[in-house]
């Protein structure tokens, strides 16, 4: 499915645009197959394994008073008594054609794409996901921009000024960033900048309500999340850069009289970017599925917060929906990364 961090750059693309297209199609097809497999695995985890383990799935859909009538109604609504292949089929059908849950005179239609229905909060899952997705996407992208800028800059500078005070200082900060958990840095930043100095309100405001309010609410989460990742990126960038600066072709470039900024920008950076891009694809994909700790610490109404609530309340359909979305995000991110390899790494294009 993907080129992991330790693997050599993605598969070679030979020939012209047609070959690229064929390559893309192949990758897309593989991704689609992967998605189907993921849906089946996730479905099994949530519906079949509990059944084999002797846990009544229907019970976990009902509230405090588990009235037998209510449990039975959920069983009917979800078709839990049907054979497994019927249940899986109904689930798939729901995603593409919608689904209707009916029991006891109450009919609920869940329109396509129906990723399930929460009988706890009486909501279809898809609107919950689309409502919360922008928050998480905003958080992940904003933080990614910050960590890329600061992480790469710090890493490159450290590599170039290896052993200097700057290098050591930056790497100590980076070590702190990697080691400190979000719920520490997050709470600390809230305590200082929001409750203490009062510079930021740090409460989430939807983008459509107010742009400045949105920025004000997102700055601390961005910085906190970026601090963690920037630290990792700085360390990786530094290590990769150092390795590459020792390569023959860099010496050749310098020997033929190229100016140092050109050597760094044109030759060294390109190679450094390959592992960084791989990491970025994985990290962004995973974060888009919900940055649970960051969203919880800052009470951001994103996917991570939704899934945590769902886990606490045993709201299975939401957990299932977010799991699927996360898998999808990781798949897409990896696909994009694989394609980008061709752009960044000339070896991929030429071979």
């Amino acid at each position: 499915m993907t080129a992991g961090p330790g693997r050599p750059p993605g598969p070679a693309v030979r020939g012209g645009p047609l070959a690229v297209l064929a390559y893309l199609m192949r990758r897309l097809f593989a991704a689609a197959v992967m998605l189907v497999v993921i849906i089946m695995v996730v479905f099994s985890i949530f519906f079949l394994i509990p059944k084999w383990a002797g846990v009544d799935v229907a019970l976990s859909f009902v509230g405090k008073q588990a009235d037998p009538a209510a449990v039975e109604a959920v069983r009917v609504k979800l078709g839990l008594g049907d054979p497994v292949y019927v249940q899986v089929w109904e689930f798939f059908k729901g995603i593409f054609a919608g689904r209707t849950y009916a029991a006891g005179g109450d009919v609920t239609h869940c329109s396509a794409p129906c990723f399930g229905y929460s009988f706890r909060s009486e909501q279809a899952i898809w609107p919950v996901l689309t409502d919360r997705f922008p928050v998480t996407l905003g958080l992940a992208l904003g933080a990614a921009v910050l960590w890329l800028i600061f992480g790469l800059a710090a890493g490159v500078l450290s590599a170039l000024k290896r052993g200097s005070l700057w290098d050591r200082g930056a790497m100590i900060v980076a070590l702190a960033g990697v080691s400190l958990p979000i719920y520490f840095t997050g709470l600390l930043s809230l305590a200082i900048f929001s409750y203490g100095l009062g510079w930021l309100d740090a409460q989430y405001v939807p983008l459509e309500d107010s742009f400045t309010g949105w920025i004000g609410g997102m700055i601390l989460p961005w910085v906190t999340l970026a601090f963690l990742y920037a630290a990792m990126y700085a360390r990786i960038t530094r290590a990769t850069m150092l390795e590459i600066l020792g390569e023959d072709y860099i010496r050749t470039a310098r020997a033929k009289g190229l100016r140092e900024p050109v050597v760094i920008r044109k030759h060294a950076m390109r190679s450094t970017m390959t592992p960084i891009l791989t990491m970025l694809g994985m990290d962004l994909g995973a974060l888009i599925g919900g940055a649970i700790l960051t969203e919880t610490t800052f009470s951001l109404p994103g996917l991570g917060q939704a899934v945590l609530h769902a886990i606490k309340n045993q709201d299975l359909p939401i957990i299932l929906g977010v799991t699927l979305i996360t898998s999808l995000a990781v798949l897409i991110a990896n696909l994009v990364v694989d394609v980008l390899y061709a752009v960044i790494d000339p070896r991929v294009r030429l071979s």
Partner: protein
Amino acid sequence: MTTQRTSGRRKQAMAAAAVVAALLTTAACGGGDGEKGGSKNGAAGFDAANNKVAQASLAKKGGTLKFAGAQDADSWDTTRGYYGFMWNFARYYSRQLVTNKTEPGKTGAELTPDLATGLAKISDDGKTYTYTLRDGITWEDGQPITSKDIKYGIERVWAQDVLSGGPTYLRDVLDPEGEYPGPYKDKSKDKLGLKAIETPDDKTIVFKLPKANSDFEEMLALISASPVRQDKDTKSKYALRPFSSGPYKFHSYNPGKDLTLVRNTEWKQSSDPIRKAYPDKITIKFFSNANDMDARLIAGDYDLDINQTGMSPQGRTSALKQHKENLDNPVSGYIRYAALAQNVKPFDNIHCRKAVLYGADHVSLQTARGGPVAGGEIGTNMLPPSVPGAEGQKYDPYEMAGANKKGNVAKAKEELKACGKPNGFKTTIAVRNNKPVEVATAESLQASLKKVGIDVEIDQYDGAQNSSVIGSPSNVKKKGYGIIIMGWGPDFPSVQGYGWPLWHSKAILESANNNYALIKDKTIDGLFDQYVNTLDEAGKTKIATEINHKVMEGAYYLPFVFERFLNWRSDRLANVYTTDAYSGQYDFVNLGLKSTK
């Protein structure tokens, strides 16, 4: 989904939390430094609203009352909600035939007419309750509320397959045989086929009970007895947008995110003797970080916590130090306890049960619950102080708050001998893994019982599964859960509303059981029967006391504390008081603001 790359760093987290707690304590002093000691702009003072009204005269019409919460309601559907704060809040958008008085403390637990012109006219045999409706009572679209709307609202309780979750007392009392199928399967044309309720005209409603129940009017005061109009009933989706009969109506609701109520302009003050409807708007914002929420309460961004279950340890520490005048310390109505399961040997023997009661260190258990202020007084019996007939610490048959408060090893060993286990025995404590305080009580109990020779293992089970783990007697037996840690509060302030599910033999269920001790005592069952047939209050109170004594004599329970909370009220709040109707919570419905800005 990801937990980000921070797992496996527990120790760092502990250190971090300590530093943050210290920082928050200092950082939080920024807000709320208005004038102190009950002045016009400042907070009313410590415990100023505990069982009494604080700053009643300062409430003005208008403004936005802001709630914050860490947990959304189980459901805002009047039929389905079971959380205490939901019942409290639901009075903003729903009315009932009768409701609790809007007065502090014990008086708040008494009933007063709401949609009805007076309390019930009860027939001599206690089986017929008749009410007449007031004039001018309307729905949010201006149509009058009729007796048929009330009947339909109550009938919804029967539709447990669609509307699960809420209390079912009304169904159990009005239709014990379960003959009525509920309004959604009702074959009659008007869907009002429930025989036990008659509506001879739009203004009259008559309840005919197959068997008398002296708490019936208490059950009609529950939110699940609210009217629902048939053409506005969206069945399972009603929770998202209940149709209002009260002074406020739903403006917007995003589950788990926020809720906003605005004035219901069709509601008439003249038709409602209870509700003052001070603010123009009421909002709830839900937080996922309870510490953040408390910091914002302290900073004055919000007025009070909708959940009303006390501040987090961190917020509590900082509030007690810096803003004590904003806190109340009411008794919650909950008792935290351990139940001793009789189907797990050797707890079938009363002496082995008594050995646990004597062996436990009650002070240590109280400390584990948070100490006398945040945890509550040492519990000495099983009837919460807010329930009529309760005697509080005055009734202490095992001297848990007296001579034996640190545990009595000698007496415990005596009981062990009488039980035929002079060298002690082994057993298991079942405790929810998502309640750190309960786990702390389990550890305390484990330590003190070790001294008397009772070897205890602690099993932390998935707290969300309690109805199938400890709620299944066969599972309890299989796992050997001799000691089960739990807590319970009254659904309505009476021995029936508190104790029936815990102590009556008929309450024993195969799943979702709450009678963990499996009490099958004919005397206790008989006393409950006597209770439901006794109509005078003095007689009911006496029986309640007696039931409590019988339960304690059986040594089925080890009470930990009569729980207390520390709840926050902002400087802006006026006309604020705690009420026994909602287990020591602030009475939401008549809260006002001093300033409308």
